[in-house]
């Protein structure tokens, strides 16, 4: 058990909210969260729908371990067809919202149709209703949360919402909960905005109680928490430095994409690193980092809480930004910093804060801005068009263009389209650092070869969270592989993709995988859900989820041609560092990857693969 056993279906066109039992056959085959929500989506929806039309559906889903004492068991996933990519979009978030939904007695909420006017969904245990959101439209994520809590006269209401970026349908708008936790990627916030759905406010007091074997569950989750505590990465590195522990490391290995991937090392890396965040500033003698913070149920606590320098140009006369708030994670610090050649830590924190406040993915925004700055230096985009000079390294341009993009003003409207559409419009599609239209995160495919294949084959477009082979290629987890070679990477990428799909579907955080393997997750799921969840079964579920997503993308029109990288990574060699002289070896890896996947040369599932996985 461990599922609530009930889902909510909300038809925004008709304005109806209905309860239905969870499909337990699917729950056993797809577990929950990412896997189960995707199963509902692919069964109910034509893969060719326009992502921003009423025909698209969008699902908020928890997993069987969400809302339990399993460490990091607080996650939920938003699944829809993504407007940035046209592929499956699947974005997950921590904070407290997911656990609250589960504790109200719901495994997931499926939204279909499109509301004629702004609405929000209010859930209080069994009672769920659509309410008018006229007073919330035009508000930021932060204002929306505050208003809904005040309105309910309950500070413990949890809110998952969009800010102005989602309302303006920025193609990489995020869904944000608990002020600064985000289902950040693939533009799930834009889909929410297109449906005139502002927020889901939930209060759950029932709790999660139907654990299959409660005593064993308490014992095994305690044992696995100890593994996290004793591990150098999850017990020390992440709580102390956050994911930012990586900035100097990845720069050293020559895989820190810099200035729109022109370079692979950034001379300003140390200025925007975890160490810099912990160093007292000259202005006030205090470091930017205030403390670390956990999401619901998390015993790692990698989250950053920071305070911006009040004297920084970006926040002069803006006291609303002076308090403690979500700080820089590695991917955001890279995208807002190195990707644009900006080494001003306070400017990065400002842009990051705007992304949280208005619900915008800092990775896609930062990487798109990198393309804008390159086009600016080429003279294609001018100061007159932008309203500001924007050479690489300009902290002023970073802050101002973050404002314009989130608020849907001026040239921000073009940046809001993402790098693929923007660079194509200005005649330089080769400058979009993306796969399937989604911008790359913070690892260069030339310096960490496995990540090139992971980006090219990621079901949601360029992404580090579908197969984090950095763990193996750089950190030696679970075994060290050479980041500069192609050999063995197809198998490695596939193994990471499938295992990650299983973790995501369980409702726990992928960061546990620095210390846990599937063999550590399995007994926790078995104790919560039943003994049928053996290691073999769980591995098969991961592989099934991956192939189901791929199959959806194929039906949406994606082919082997879309499993690609930009020419820059395939033809322009890395200029410095350990990978100097190397390009991505994707052409070497891709055919082998299809082979180990059981796909044909067109990247489609072979009949025997379908049979094996029950698809």
């Amino acid at each position, binding site marked *: 058990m461990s599922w609530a056993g009930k889902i909510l279906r909300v038809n925004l066109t008709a304005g109806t909210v209905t309860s239905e039992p969870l499909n337990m056959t699917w729950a056993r085959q797809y577990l929950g969260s990412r896997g189960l929500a995707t199963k509902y989506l692919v069964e109910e929806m034509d893969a060719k729908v326009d992502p921003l039309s009423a025909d698209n559906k969008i699902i908020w889903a928890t997993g069987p371990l969400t809302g339990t004492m399993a460490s990091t068991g607080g996650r939920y996933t938003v699944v829809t067809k993504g407007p940035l990519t046209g592929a499956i979009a699947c974005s997950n978030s921590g904070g407290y919202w997911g656990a609250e939904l589960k504790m109200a007695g719901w495994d997931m909420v499926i939204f279909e149709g499109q509301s004629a006017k702004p609405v929000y969904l209010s859930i209080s245990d069994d009672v769920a209703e659509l309410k008018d959101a006229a007073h919330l439209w035009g508000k930021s994520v932060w204002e929306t949360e505050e208003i809904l809590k005040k309105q309910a006269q309950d500070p413990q209401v949890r809110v998952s919402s969009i800010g102005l970026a989602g309302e303006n349908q920025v193609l990489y708008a995020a869904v944000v909960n608990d002020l600064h936790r985000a289902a950040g990627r693939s533009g799930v916030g834009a889909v929410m905005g297109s449906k005139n759905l502002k927020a889901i406010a939930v209060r759950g*007091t029932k709790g999660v109680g139907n654990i299959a074997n409660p005593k064993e569950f*308490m014992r095994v989750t305690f044992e696995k928490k100890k593994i996290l*505590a004793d591990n150098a990465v999850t017990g020390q590195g992440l*709580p102390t430095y956050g994911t930012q522990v990586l900035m100097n490391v990845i720069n050293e290995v020559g895989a820190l994409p810099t200035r729109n991937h022109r370079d692979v090392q950034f001379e300003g890396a140390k200025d925007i690193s975890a160490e810099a965040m912990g160093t007292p500033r000259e202005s006030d003698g205090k470091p930017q980092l205030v403390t*670390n913070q*956990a999401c619901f*149920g998390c015993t790692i606590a990698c989250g950053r809480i920071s305070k911006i320098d009040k004297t920084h140009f970006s926040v002069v006369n803006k006291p609303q930004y002076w308090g403690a708030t979500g700080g820089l994670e590695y991917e955001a610090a890279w995208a807002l910093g190195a990707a644009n050649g900006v080494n001003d830590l306070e400017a990065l924190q400002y842009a990051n804060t705007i992304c949280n406040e208005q619900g915008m993915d800092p990775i896609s925004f930062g990487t798109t801005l990198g393309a804008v700055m390159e086009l600016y230096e080429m003279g294609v985009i001018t100061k007159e068009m932008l309203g500001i000079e924007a050479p690489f390294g300009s902290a002023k341009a970073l802050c101002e263009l973050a404002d314009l993009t989130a608020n849907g003003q001026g040239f921000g409207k073009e940046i809001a389209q993402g790098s693929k559409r923007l660079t194509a419009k200005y005649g330089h599609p080769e400058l979009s650092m993306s796969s399937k239209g989604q911008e790359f995160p913070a690892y260069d495919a030339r310096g960490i070869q496995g990540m090139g294949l992971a980006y090219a084959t990621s079901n949601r477009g360029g992404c580090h969270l579908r197969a984090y082979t950095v763990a193996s290629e750089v950190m030696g987890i679970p075994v060290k592989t050479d980041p500069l070679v192609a050999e063995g990477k197809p198998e490695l990428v596939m193994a990471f993709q499938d295992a990650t799909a299983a973790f995501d579907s369980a409702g726990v955080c992928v960061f546990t995988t620095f210390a846990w393997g599937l063999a550590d997750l399995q007994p926790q799921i078995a104790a919560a859900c039943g003994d049928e969840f053996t290691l073999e079964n769980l591995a098969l579920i991961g592989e099934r989820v991956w192939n189901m997503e791929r199959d959806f993308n194929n039906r949406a029109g994606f082919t082997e041609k879309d499993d690609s990288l930009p020419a820059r990574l395939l033809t322009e060699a890395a200029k410095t560092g350990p990978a100097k002289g190397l390009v991505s070896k994707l052409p070497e890896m891709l055919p082998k990857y299809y082979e180990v996947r059981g796909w044909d040369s067109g990247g489609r599932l072979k009949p025997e693969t379908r049979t094996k996985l029950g698809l």
Partner: protein
Amino acid sequence: MQKSLHINPEKCTGCLQCEMACSFENYGTYAPAKSRIKVFDFHHTGRKVPYTCTQCDEAWCLHACPVEAITVDKATGAKVVNETTCVGCKVCTIACPFGTVNYVQETGKVQKCDLCGGDPACATACPTGAITYIDANWTGLNKMAAWADKLGNQPAA
């Protein structure tokens, strides 16, 4: 030796493992809404503060109860609500200056921390040592030791 729950807010990350452990111990479900220990989140400062009953010696709740439903557990010193005696009058919730006795609609009784009979689940579950169960006479020992360390462990001048 009597022990008491000791809270160090600086170590709290806001994970709510304590709230889940408390509700599981008492109701068999993971439900922070039913927890007797609450973590308060002050997002403008980044601070999180766990708060629960401190088991006062001269407990207001105990003295206020008209039916003597609240008694002292001699082994732990905990002030314990006897649910069969409690009539749900809520006078103790008014008497308690700290708000740590609360009425439960579902049962019609009040609930408060009873130190789990001497092995508090919240302290066991806390991953950072923000909640500990230690010698009641020496709750300040760690803080004293930390300050003493500055004198005792610094290199000689």
